[in-house]
C-alpha cells in the first residue's frame, strides 16, 4: 500500500499533465468528430490561461470564478470567429485557424499589460489534481452522452458527408459552431488549470507546435470515439518518461529521440490505424480472423 502511495506521489505531476493533455486532446476531438480540422485551440487555451491568471492575480477573484472565465472568455471569442471561419473546408479551415492562433500569440507578445513575451509569473498555485480529473470526468461524461444521441448522429452525418447531411435537414452550421465553441471552452479551461499548476503563462507556450501536439494526441489515440483522445494523450505523455532510459542506453539525446518516436508513431497510426491506437485490438482481431479463415479454407 505504501508503495502504491509513494508511486502516486512521485508521479503526481505526470498524472496531472496526463489529465490536462487529455482535456486538450478532447478539445480538438470536439471539432474533429464533425470532420473539421481546427488548429485554433492553442489560441483558445492562451486566452483561457490569461483570463484566469489575470483574475486571480490582479483581481484576487475566487478560483472557481477564474476557471469559469477561463472557459467562457474563449468560448465567447469562438462564436464570432467560428461563424465566418467554419464556412471554410479541409485545409483552408486548418490554415485559417493556424492564422488565428498566431494572431493571438503575437497579440499577447505585444501586450505590455501582460508583460509581453515574458508573460505572467508567480501565479498562485491553486490547481489540485482532483480538479483536473473532475473536469476531465465531466467532459468525458458529456461526450459519452452525446454518442448515440440525436445530436451525436447529426455530427457523425456531418463528418461523413456534409452536403448530404444538410440535405437531410441537419443544420450543419449550428452543429459545427456548437462543437467549435465547446472545444474552445475546454481548451480555455485546461489553459486556466495549467496556468495555476505551473505558476506561469507565456505566449510562446501556445504557438503552432502546441496546437499540433493537441492534434497529435487526438489522432494517435483515435478520433472516432471520445475515449480515443484520452488514450492518445496518456500514451504520448507517459512515453517521454519511458524513452529517457532508452535514450541513455542508445547514446542519443532524449529530445530528438522523443521527437523521432512521436513522429514515427503518428505516421504509423495515420497509415495503418486510421482510427487510432484504441482500434488496435479490433484491427488485430480482424487480422487473426482473416488468417484463420484463410488457413481453414486451405
Amino acid at each position, binding site marked *: 500500500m505504501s508503495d502504491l502511495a509513494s508511486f502516486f506521489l512521485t508521479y503526481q505531476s505526470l498524472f496531472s499533465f496526463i489529465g490536462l493533455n487529455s482535456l486538450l486532446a478532447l478539445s480538438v476531438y470536439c471539432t474533429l468528430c464533425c470532420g473539421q480540422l481546427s488548429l485554433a485551440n492553442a489560441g483558445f487555451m492562451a486566452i483561457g490561461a490569461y483570463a484566469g491568471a489575470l483574475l486571480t492575480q490582479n483581481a484576487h477573484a475566487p478560483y472557481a470564478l477564474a476557471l469559469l472565465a477561463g472557459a467562457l472568455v474563449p468560448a465567447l471569442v469562438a462564436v464570432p470567429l467560428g461563424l465566418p471561419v467554419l464556412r*471554410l473546408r479541409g485545409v483552408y479551415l486548418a*490554415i485559417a485557424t493556424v*492564422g488565428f492562433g*498566431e494572431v493571438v500569440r503575437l497579440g499577447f507578445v505585444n501586450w505590455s499589460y501582460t508583460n509581453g513575451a515574458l508573460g505572467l509569473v508567480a501565479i498562485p498555485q491553486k490547481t489540485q489534481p482532483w480538479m483536473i480529473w473532475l473536469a476531465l470526468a465531466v467532459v468525458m461524461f458529456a461526450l459519452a452522452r452525446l454518442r448515440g444521441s440525436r445530436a451525436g448522429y447529426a455530427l457523425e452525418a456531418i463528418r461523413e458527408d456534409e452536403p448530404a447531411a444538410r440535405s437531410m435537414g441537419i443544420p450543419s452550421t449550428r452543429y459545427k459552431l456548437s462543437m467549435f465553441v465547446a472545444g474552445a471552452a475546454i481548451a480555455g479551461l485546461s489553459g486556466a488549470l495549467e496556468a495555476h499548476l505551473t505558476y506561469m503563462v507565456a505566449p510562446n507556450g501556445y504557438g503552432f*507546435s502546441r496546437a499540433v501536439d493537441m492534434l497529435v494526441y487526438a489522432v494517435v489515440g483515435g478520433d472516432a470515439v471520445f475515449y480515443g483522445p484520452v488514450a492518445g494523450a496518456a500514451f504520448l505523455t507517459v512515453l517521454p518518461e519511458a524513452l529517457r532510459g532508452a535514450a541513455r542506453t542508445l547514446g542519443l539525446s532524449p529530445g530528438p*529521440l522523443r521527437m523521432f518516436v512521436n*513522429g514515427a508513431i503518428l505516421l504509423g497510426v495515420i*497509415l495503418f490505424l486510421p482510427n487510432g491506437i484504441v482500434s488496435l485490438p479490433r484491427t488485430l482481431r480482424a487480422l487473426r480472423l482473416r488468417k484463420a479463415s484463410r488457413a481453414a479454407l486451405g
Partner: protein
Amino acid sequence: MWQQAINGVFLGAIYALFAVGYALVFGVLDILNLAHQAVFTVSAFVALAFVAGGSMPLAIAMPVALLAAGLIGIGLERVAFRPLRGRSDSNISGLISSLAAATILEAVALQIWGPDVRRFPQGTFPDKPLSVLGATVSALQLTIIAVSVALMAALTALLRATRLGRQIRAVAESPRAARILGVDVDRVIAWSFFLSSALGGAAGVLFGVAFNSVSPDMGRSVELKGLAVIILGGMGSIAGAVIAGFALGLLEVLTVVQLGSSWRDAVSFGVLFLVLLVRPSGLLGKAAIREA
C-alpha cells in the same frame, strides 16, 4: 524608401521561392505538405556541411543540397503520401502524415547537427556593399534575388514547355483523365515532389546564407509565412505564389519601418486571415472548391 523596397524584394524572393514549392504540390495533389519546412531546414544544413566540412564553394554545395532536398521529397511522397492516396479524407490525413514526416526530419537534423545556430565560414560569399541608385545592397543580396528569380523562371518554363510540365498540369487538372490519356500519374507526382522539395531546399540554402544562420527550427517561421503566401496568391497557383511572396516581403519591411519589428509577423497572419474571410480564392486562385 527605395532602400526598404530593395530589402522587401530580397525577403520576398525567398518567401516566393519557398511558397512555390507548396503551391506546386497543392496544385497537383490538393495536399498541404507541412514537411516542406523540414526539407528547407535539412537542405540548408546539407549545404553548410559541404561548405564547412568539405570546404566546397557554395556554388557547388548548393546544387548538391538541392538534389538532396529533391530526393528527400521523393522519399516523403513514397512514405507519407502515396499510401494515403485514394482514401476519402486524404487531404486531412495527408496533412497529418506530412506533420509526422516533418517531426521525423527535424528530429534527425537535431540529432545530427544539434540545437545551436551555425554559421557559414568566413569568405564563403562576397559581402561587399554596392550602391544601386543611392541604396546600399550587398552583392550577396543581388545574387540571392537573381538565383531565386532564375529558379522560379526555370520552373515556369518547365511547366509550360516540357513534356513533364504538361503532364504535371494534366494531373493537376484531373488525375483520372490524365491516367486515361496514358500519363504515368505516380511518376508525375513523384517528379512534382522532387521539384517542389528542390525549390524549398534552394530557399533554405538562400535563407541560411542571407542571414548567415542555420538552425533546426529555422523552417518554423518560414512555414507559417509560406502559408500566408499561398493563401494570398491562391492555393495551387504558382504565379500567385510568386506575386504574393514579393508582396508579403514588401509588406513586412514596410510594417517594420512604420510600426516596429514586433508587429512584423502579425501582418502576414492578418493578411492570411483577411484573405480567407473576404476572398478565399486568393489573388489568382480558382474559386468553387474551397467552400462547402
